[in-house]
């Protein structure tokens, strides 16, 4: 079996797909959200550590973003040579550095597509920011109506 891809993490859980090199049969392994979180809360680093240990690393790296005052949050210290842990850590790292984005419903997307293409990305970004500011994680037509006055869509 060879490592093929990872999906997620979504909501703390992720899947890792393996593929047979001869018959291409795929098998996926799904991690359990609670267990993954529990292991991480103990300060366990997937694949072992590569960077020297920082004082109060678990405390500081587990504080919700925006909470820690200083010193700088410890950098992720994982990696290693193992392709499995490398791939999993890359996926977790990418998810942690990417800000959360709301999900678009089909109706709302259709409205975006009705406006001129060159301003679509900007309008989309503005609507997403508006939604996040108002605690909406799904952008539907009601959200579009709410921003209509502000953005003139």
């Amino acid at each position, binding site marked *: 079996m060879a490592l093929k891809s990872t999906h997620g993490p979504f909501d703390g859980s992720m899947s890792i797909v393996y593929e047979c090199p001869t018959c291409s049969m795929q098998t996926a392994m799904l991690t359990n959200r609670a267990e993954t979180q529990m292991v991480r809360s103990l300060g366990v680093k997937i694949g072992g550590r590569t960077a020297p240990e920082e*004082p109060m690393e678990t405390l500081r790296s587990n504080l919700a973003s925006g909470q820690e005052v200083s010193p700088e949050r410890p950098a992720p210290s994982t990696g290693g040579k193992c392709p499995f842990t490398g791939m999993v850590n890359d996926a977790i790292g990418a998810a942690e550095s990417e800000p959360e984005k709301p999900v678009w419903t089909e109706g709302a997307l259709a409205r975006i597509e009705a406006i001129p293409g060159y301003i679509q990305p900007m309008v989309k970004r503005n609507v997403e920011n508006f939604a996040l500011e108002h605690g909406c994680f799904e952008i539907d037509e009601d959200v579009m109506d709410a921003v209509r006055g502000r953005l003139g869509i």
Partner: protein
Amino acid sequence: MSGKGGVGKSTVTACLADGLTRLGVSTGVLDADLNGPCMARMMGVKDHKPSSQNGAMIAARNAYGVPVMSMDMFLPEDETPLVWEAPSQQGAYTWRSMVEMSALRELLSDTDWGDLDVLLIDLPPGAERFQNLADLLPDLTGAVVVSTASQTAMTVVSRSISMALNIAEVEVVGLVENMSTMVCPECGYKDRVFIGVETVEELARRHGVPYLGAIPFNVGLADFLETGRSYIEMHAEHPAAHAILEVAQRVHFWLKNQSK
């Protein structure tokens, strides 16, 4: 510890740090209340920002040199609640206590405390917190128990003493009575705040643990502690200062006997 909330565990911790320091005992303070941290404020170091040196976090030092470490210092605003990073806060109960144990272990072990004779650990309310600490620190020297003279508080405190002695098997240094008397700042008249069937001293006797003394309710104490200066030194004539020093002397005596 006490098991009961709001009886003055943190205040007594700050007072004891003051008293023990006066007696020449090198003392540090660790705030084990991660969700309601207040020791940085009560020791007068709330503006201290944590920084690290030689692989350890530097403890804050108050005006009379006591090192302090508290979760207070890691939260940017007084209003900021302690929230741990999680994909969703809903399922977080399964691991929150694990993160808190790890965080407490780090606050204790990753801090550069300097040379200490005694480390005072201020616990949050709840007897099970003491059990967790005893699991984390099997060599815990002893527990100072705090109670008011309220019968409700004493019922909870009584259970906590039994728990410390019989379940966690940790020695009890003694029982401190807090806020059970009120001294009039004008005329010095002393009055009891709670009147019940059993006194705190009797409770101590019933459990066979030392009674360490009574710290009176003192209107200006909380504000004064926030300055980080020594109450015993600045208010030497106040009955509360005498009481604090007396409690510290008894704790010191107990510690000296322990190390023999």
